């Protein structure tokens, strides 16, 4: 970076956020050059740590004046490289200091938080007051922030009933790339509470959800809250085929029975997660772990009966409650123990539940083609999560034990991503993980509109340049 050019920028940034919250130190910049994905960023030029919306606004105005790119970042626990700068010398906005609960509005049953608040912290603070959020955060919700999830269409804990991260939002406060501050939903009226998303105008909230930080910096989000449940039921169910498990999953979701619904999709996955269980039930190919949470024990029990009926009708059987309970009591801690298998490479996407078995079949063909099924240095976990109604995540995660086998892994990884798109899957987040596979297939009209919106809102292309190829 040319220091003479940047000096006035640094000085002005320091006057906005304080000198201790602006850094051009090389080691500090390097520490922001990676996130939880296998991808690498162009090394940022500056790291800036604001605490308030107004500071973000001033920073973006300054960036426009000096034409310096800006990349917003949260807990950087995402696995698609969404917050990694694509251009050199960008300002990375580390938003994790913006982590306050702004307001709990019991009248509207909403919580307004700063965008840098981590999900696990939000859950803790709300639980002390007897509340929960519906969508609880991605599986990396210890470090994942509300803003980061909303920017990347996260799905995760609670998605079976409450949908993806964006479905919980009532209103957003966004700083536009040119520095103006916008409030969406009923927030358009400064005299109104932020209680309704779809009100008066079209849904501007949706414009910013999933934007990967290219259309604005989310500074506050107002989310729906609910009283903590009185009734909880856990259940793990074994199935002799992925087809049977998927059909049961579809029926459970159709009837909206589960708060959370996890599918261990193939026997290899069941053996990886639970070798003892795989040994005990040699016939089990897939496992469904179901969590029911309701306002009363009676409702939860009634739903449990319906759940058990569906499971029976599809040839499934009860195998305990350990996994569903563990999944819920160790929320946000279930993925990390898998890191021991080697570095992880993901294929996160969405698809209708009915199309899940096809994915598993095709994945097994790819594993066979590249000899992965016989190569202990590359392993996989195939799982899914019920989302909203009748779609689910497709999670085939590869683990590379031996970096020398990366060339094989790259082929498998690439083939999987191609097949996922070809079989009608859509990634929820995009980032460096998916752009290469997604962008060539985007319908012209869709992409053209996105381009026009980006140009209108960000005439100098300040905010996270090159994302989505823009």
């Amino acid at each position, binding site marked *: 970076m040319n220091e003479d050019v940047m000096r006035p920028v640094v000085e002005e940034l320091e006057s906005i956020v304080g000198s*201790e*919250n602006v*850094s051009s*130190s*090389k*080691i*500090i910049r*390097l*520490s*922001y*050059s*990676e*996130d*939880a994905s296998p991808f690498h960023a162009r090394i940022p030029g500056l*790291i800036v*740590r604001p605490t308030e919306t107004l500071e973000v606004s001033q920073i973006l105005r300054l960036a426009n004046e000096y034409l310096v790119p800006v990349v917003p970042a949260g*807990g*950087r*626990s995402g696995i698609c490289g969404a917050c990694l700068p694509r251009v050199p010398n960008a300002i990375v906005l*580390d938003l*994790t*200091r913006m982590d306050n609960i702004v307001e709990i509005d019991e009248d509207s049953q909403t919580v307004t938080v700063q965008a840098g608040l*981590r999900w*696990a*912290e939000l*859950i*803790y603070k709300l*639980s002390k007051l007897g509340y929960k959020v519906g969508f609880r955060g991605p599986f*990396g*919700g*210890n*470090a994942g922030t509300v803003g980061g999830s909303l920017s990347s269409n996260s799905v995760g804990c609670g998605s079976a009933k409450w949908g993806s991260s964006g479905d919980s939002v009532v209103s957003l406060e966004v700083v536009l790339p040119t520095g103006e501050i916008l409030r969406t939903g009923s927030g358009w009226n400064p005299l109104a509470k932020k209680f309704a998303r779809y009100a008066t105008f079209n849904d501007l909230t949706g414009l910013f959800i999933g934007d990967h930080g290219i259309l604005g910096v989310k500074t506050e989000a107002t989310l729906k809250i609910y009283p903590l449940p009185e009734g909880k039921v856990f259940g793990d169910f074994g199935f002799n085929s992925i087809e049977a498990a998927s059909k049961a999953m579809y029926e459970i979701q159709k009837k909206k029975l589960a708060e959370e619904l996890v599918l261990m999709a193939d026997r290899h996955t069941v053996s990886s*997660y*639970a*070798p*003892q*269980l795989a*040994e*005990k039930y040699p016939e089990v190919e897939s496992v469904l772990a179901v969590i029911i949470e309701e306002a009363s024990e009676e409702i939860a029990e009634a739903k449990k009966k319906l759940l058990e009926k569906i499971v029976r009708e599809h040839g499934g059987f009860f*195998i*305990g*409650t*350990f*996994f569903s309970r*563990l999944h819920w*009591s*160790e*929320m*946000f*801690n279930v*993925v*990390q*123990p898998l*890191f*021991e298998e*080697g*570095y*992880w490479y993901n294929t996160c996407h969405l698809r209708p539940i009915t199309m899940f078995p096809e994915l598993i079949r095709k994945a097994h063909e790819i594993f066979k083609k590249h000899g992965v099924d016989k190569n202990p240095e590359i392993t996989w976990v195939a799982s899914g999560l019920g989302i909203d109604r009748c779609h689910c995540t497709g999670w085939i995660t590869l683990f590379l034990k031996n*970096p020398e086998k990366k060339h094989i892994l790259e082929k498998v990884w690439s083939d999987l991503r191609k097949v996922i798109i070809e079989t009608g899957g859509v990634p929820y987040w995009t980032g460096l993980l998916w752009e290469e596979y997604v962008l060539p297939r985007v319908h012209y009209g869709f992409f053209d509109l996105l381009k026009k919106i980006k140009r209108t809102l960000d005439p100098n292309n300040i905010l996270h340049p090159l994302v989505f190829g823009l």
Partner: protein
Amino acid sequence: MAKVEFSNVKKFENFLYLCGKCGDCSLAVKIATSKSPLSHPCAVKNVLGYEAYDARGRLIILKNLLSDKLEVNEEVLDWAYTCTTCGACRETCLAVEGGIDTPSIMEALRRDLVSQGFRFEKHLSILENIKNLDNPYGEPKEERLSFLGEELSNIPEKADIVYFIGCTSSYRTKEIALAAIKFLKQFKKEFAVLRDETCCGSILLRYGYVNEAKEQAERLVKKLNEMNVKTVIFTCPGCYRTFKKDYPEILGRDLGFETLHLVEFLDTYLKDKNIVFEAKNDEIVTYHDPCHLGRHLDVYEAPRNIIKRIKDIKLIEMETIKNFAHCCGAGGGVKSTFPDLALKVARNRIDEALEVNASILLSACPFCKLNLKQAADNGLKVLDIAEFLVETQVHEVVEVAPKTVEVVEISPGKRLMDYLNGHVEIFKGLRVGCKFNYEIVDWKTQEPKLKFYVMVLESGERPKIKISMGAADNPDVTIIISEPAAEKLVKCEERSEYAEAFGNFFNEPTEEEFIDVILHRSTKELMRMGYGEFAREAGLI
């Protein structure tokens, strides 16, 4: 700058690769989501703010150093010494068994830097002080024991037990040493104090000067062996960790004597005795776990047991405790290298104590005490446990005669404890060293009525176990059982029946009869430890 060979860091290269960069090491709050007293674990990052100072950032930077994308300069040198090596990141990390050991990796880096000439001026003067004056503070060595005055003549030069005072309590926190000596004498233990005690070399190891520390270790251990010492007691967890963990490693041999912290000695001594302490005033106290005593040596319960023995004192725990307690900021050479940083970290810990309305913050480490006291400019009293015992219970410790036997109804918890003692086959399959807590709770209030823990001493068909009251230090699992469920468990005649009942209470809990399990390790790790066998038989997995 010259090229640096990272031979020590390279021993950990695999761990740099296995870090999944999830960010838990600094950003996690696991209080509600996994019932762990953990919140923003990296005390240094909580002050300095940037990613470079937490474990994830440090591992990213180390990868850049190893691949020559970053060269060593003053900035890197400064950064290398900003880690207190407290180990909170390691406790939080679930990526590998026991967590990625970033503190050891940072110490490896320091060894590489030191061995290739990258040294702090400040450190060199401390090195000189230790070499010439036997203490890092630059104090006259002949004055090391002068604080004892005439008392010294009453303390033997030789005994089976040696109290190792340490440099900090010899020169800076003499009150802790005086308190320790009072209790050791009071409990009629004959003990000695080394007349020519020297620095243990802890600070040298933390800075990366291994060879110099080894010289200290050799000299001290030789002397203690020549004296045929059986036990060395410490009040400084820094010295204690250095003796217990570092010395066997750098000397390549067993020390030939037992090492104990004073709180362990007192806790063990008091266990079977009716000794009560009486405080001057009703006070709310809280306890800060020193990293070297807690995370590094797994001593969590002994200090708490002692505090709970003091009448009229209420122990209220802070938000982060035990293996997830925030560091005070003084360790790992940070206090001497970056005193302002150490103080800011301590202020955050003081705030945690104030949040629970404590009027006294207790610890069991002279280094923690000094740093926390310096930061507590708001009326909070900061004391070492030993000192607190001396200061607040001015009444003599009273030996109470054993009570006459009362007829008391045996609680369901106690019955389960007795039952487990007689049915050790329940623990078949568990590895030696497994330890797990039981909490027998009131089914209505969910309040614990009895806490005990089991340790596996020998594995086998009928394993040898030890059941003790209270909670284990760093347990693998906590099993919560309602009293009605415990009542039914004790009626089971054999393991299979017990396992089935256990599984039913877990899988099909009722309002009154239930079992819950809190895991303190990953399921993979627990499987390796042998917990899978019972879990499978019980139908948990």
